[in-house]
């Protein structure tokens, strides 16, 4: 848990610095880090927030970036489905990427057992405090770094790394390229609608490719 928490801490530091150096006031960035609690969605929302995009565009973008959590939650439901709803949602809110990976490695069998809750909270407390401590440190340090250094761009580099890690197979490359071109080409649209156009074009391209060239694996599954 020490090595992954170093990774989380570095990630939190970058997020904290990027938030402030993109133009968010430090107290606001701190509030965001503490209550939003989702690094990649925060980073993706940054350029939109700073340029004053409509709230629905920001929310739609963050929702798409967070869709991987929807997939995780289907797994969490197998372990935590028997708890009361309020507790289920609390567990879900704190369940980040790393907690998910560690938990599924520790409990590969998808059924509830009494030692799961202590294990879950242990990994959450560890991960959350590494993340939050580093985010707040980043926010604090960023106020002391000149804006001309352009460290806000570290947030874009972070998202670039995540985007690369999502590329698997030719279809995802094409879908990504279509989304990029559409978002750039539609840039002059008002209200940052180019982001929405880019997302829609990327998903449409992916679905179209899936329909035209079905995966052998997907065909067998359906």
């Amino acid at each position, binding site marked *: 848990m020490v090595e992954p928490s170093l990774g989380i801490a570095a990630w939190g530091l970058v997020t904290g610095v990027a938030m402030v150096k993109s133009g968010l006031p430090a107290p*606001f960035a701190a509030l965001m880090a503490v209550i939003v609690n989702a690094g990649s969605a925060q980073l993706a929302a940054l*350029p939109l927030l700073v340029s004053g995009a409509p709230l629905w565009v920001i929310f739609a973008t963050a929702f798409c970036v967070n869709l991987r959590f929807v997939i995780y939650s289907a797994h969490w439901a197998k372990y935590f489905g028997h708890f009361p709803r309020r507790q289920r949602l609390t567990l879900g809110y704190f369940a980040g990427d790393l907690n998910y990976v560690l938990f599924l490695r520790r409990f590969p069998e998808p059924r509830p057992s009494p030692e799961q809750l202590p294990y879950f909270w242990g990994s959450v407390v560890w991960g959350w405090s590494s993340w939050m401590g580093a985010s707040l440190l980043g926010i604090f340090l960023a106020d002391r770094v000149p804006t001309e250094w352009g460290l806000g*761009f570290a947030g874009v580099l972070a998202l670039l790394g995540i985007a690369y890690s999502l590329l698997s197979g030719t279809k995802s490359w094409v879908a990504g390229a279509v989304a990029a071109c559409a978002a750039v080409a539609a840039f002059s649209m008002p209200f940052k609608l180019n982001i929405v156009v880019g997302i829609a074009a990327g998903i449409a391209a992916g*679905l179209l490719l899936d329909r035209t060239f079905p995966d052998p694996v997907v065909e067998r599954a359906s």
Partner: protein
Amino acid sequence: MNGWYGLAAVVGLAAITVVTRGFFLIAERELTLPPWALNGLRYAPLAALVAVIAPEIVLTDGRLIATWADARLFAVLAGTAYFWWKRAILGTIVSGTAVLLALKLGLGW
């Protein structure tokens, strides 16, 4: 940035964290998604990330970058090279930021 706008954004983003992370924990009974929705889920995060970062990388004030002397391009090249060499996100950030700082502080780009 207007205070109410920022506050509404943060509260909304927190709500999105709750709804996405708890998606299949909200209903009392087990839910399943139709296949087309699951396929869409595969592409949506990639499309959203790329749509946000592509304009940040290649545009300046709404126009395509017209000069090679832009630190962002070389930062992205360095980060990209690192990622496909080691497949590590943290190194992508560090190498890209190092190149960015070297060009901005060293060459004054």
